[in-house]
């Protein structure tokens, strides 16, 4: 563990990414309580102000302070991302574990289903789910839509990890000693997938963050007065104001890059052999793992 930490610290871009992510989170948490402005109060006399010391990022169409709305938007976006990745983790862990533990036939069937689900990129799935549950603009609708068909990568990772673990001596020993299945599963298998899960979370995050923005820009996101980065971008798009488009885009890009580099650093830290070599073997930046070893099959991932 300490060695891993040392390796992580030796990775300059990963350290900077962690610092950047920390700064962004701090900004989102600290700016609203410190700001003197009401993020929802409409004041047309102050609309579309350019950045001044009073409004560091200027104001939006309704005279609301943009700095504060960016911070609030960041909160919403991060909340959505965390909740959605939470759901993804649970679904992925369950599905992957069942698939890995069940016999060959069930496993094959379950993995073919995953392959099938992978045939549709994320955004169309999100749109379909939004239709299904009715795009009523609530935050939980969006969370559900973003997570319901995004667990497949996690499930694959968990499954392959469990398949590998099952062959391990300590699992065989536990079985030989007469341990029950659920005991082996909960005590030996699940804890050992945490490393994989950590990486899976970080890999899913950028996609979810972008997904929220995409859905909002398409007009299916969280309803208007709420601030999200996607909503701010949608303002910019519908009123043809590039400033409102660039600001959230930059924030999204910053967050995505930071998370990506952190995931990369963590992977190197936990598995020093990986460095470089396995990057070529299919580490896909931002969008997740692409397994090129083993069976050649439909893979896909999506932002």
């Amino acid at each position: 563990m300490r060695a891993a930490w040392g390796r992580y610290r030796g990775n300059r871009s990963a350290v900077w990414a962690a610092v950047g992510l920390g700064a962004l989170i701090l900004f989102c948490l600290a700016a609203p309580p410190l700001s003197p402005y009401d993020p929802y109060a409409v004041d047309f006399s102050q609309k579309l102000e350019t950045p001044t010391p009073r409004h560091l990022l200027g104001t939006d169409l309704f005279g609301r302070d943009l700095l504060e709305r960016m911070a609030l938007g960041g909160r919403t976006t991060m909340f959505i991302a965390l909740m959605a990745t939470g759901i993804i983790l649970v679904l992925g862990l369950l599905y992957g574990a069942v698939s890995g533990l069940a016999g060959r036939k069930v496993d094959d069937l379950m993995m073919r289903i995953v392959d099938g689900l992978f045939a549709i990129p994320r955004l169309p799935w999100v749109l379909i789910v939004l239709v299904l549950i009715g795009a009523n603009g609530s935050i939980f609708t969006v969370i559900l839509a973003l997570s319901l068909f995004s667990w497949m990568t996690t499930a694959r990772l968990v499954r392959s990890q469990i398949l590998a673990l099952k062959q391990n001596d300590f699992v065989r020993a536990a079985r030989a000693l007469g341990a029950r299945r659920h005991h082996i599963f909960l005590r030996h298998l699940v804890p050992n997938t945490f490393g994989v899960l950590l990486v899976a979370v970080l890999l899913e995050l950028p996609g979810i963050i972008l997904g929220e923005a995409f859905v909002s820009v398409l007009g299916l996101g969280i309803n208007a007065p709420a601030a999200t980065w996607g909503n701010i971008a949608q303002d910019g798009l519908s009123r043809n104001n590039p400033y409102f488009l660039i600001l959230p885009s930059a924030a999204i890009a910053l967050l995505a890059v930071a998370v990506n580099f952190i995931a990369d650093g963590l992977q190197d830290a936990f598995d020093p052999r990986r460095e470089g070599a396995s990057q070529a073997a299919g580490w896909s930046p931002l969008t997740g793992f692409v397994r090129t070893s083993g069976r050649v099959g439909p893979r896909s991932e999506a932002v």
Partner: protein
Amino acid sequence: MTAFVIRRLLWTIPLILVVMLVTFALMRGIGGSPFRLEFGGVPYALQLRFERYYGLDDPWFVEFWNYVRHVSTFDFGPSLTNRYVTVDQVIKERFPVSLALSGLAAAWAVPLGVGLGLVAALARNTRVDRVATVIATIILVVPVFLFSDLAATHLVNKWHLVPPGWESWKARIVPPLPLGLAPAGYIARLMRAAVVETLEQDYVRTARAKGLYSDRIVWRHVVPNSLVPFLSAAVPTLALLVTGAFFVESAFGIPGAAQYYLTATLNRDYPMVMGLTVALAVLVIFANLIADFVAVLLDRRLVEKQVA
């Protein structure tokens, strides 16, 4: 090899069925009937007759079977919101437009990405590498709607570099560019990683030791050998293209499938959404398949891995 191709071809059938089943389940899960009174429907007796007529009173598996049967003969059914249009017509008219857009985007993305990745890898750990990697990362993570909006408002509407729309060949130069940027960044990063790995291989060192020119080493040894991991991992770019199409088509007013998909979704035109989804899945599955076949042609060892 033939057995491999046949097996993979056969596998596509259950995959497509899974997609159809899931979309079908979702659509059916919404419940309701298009003929209910609260939606301005018809009297109850007529409702029942309509439902009987359209087979909506059958159990779900009969309904699904009917759908599969019709789709397998390329009959995706009518649109619910536009009575003069069938789903087949939309697929026939709209998909080629989106395909052309994606193809042209790839025409931007591949040279851009391969070039950027190659430059970065050959100059690895220098300032050139860092600049190229930063550029690749930025075009990968900046949301596509920013690039497509900027390109549409400035290049087309303000500076009139190219005509708007999608009619002439000139008009088709600019819209694919913002769509191709994210894939280009993705390709660049993959290419860099693959080339860096290839450069460390023994045969490259041998070639260098033999005194071959470095240009020749790059083009004869490094690039061809970097293509396999590049190819099989480049498929996710397809997802980037599909996602991007939603924004690029609306920014430039291109009458493609993505825009229609969004409209159909908002209008709850279920047969349309299902039909377009299934068509998209078929496209993605076959694109995957082709990438796999090409990868196998380049590196026959992959077949054995597959069989094992």
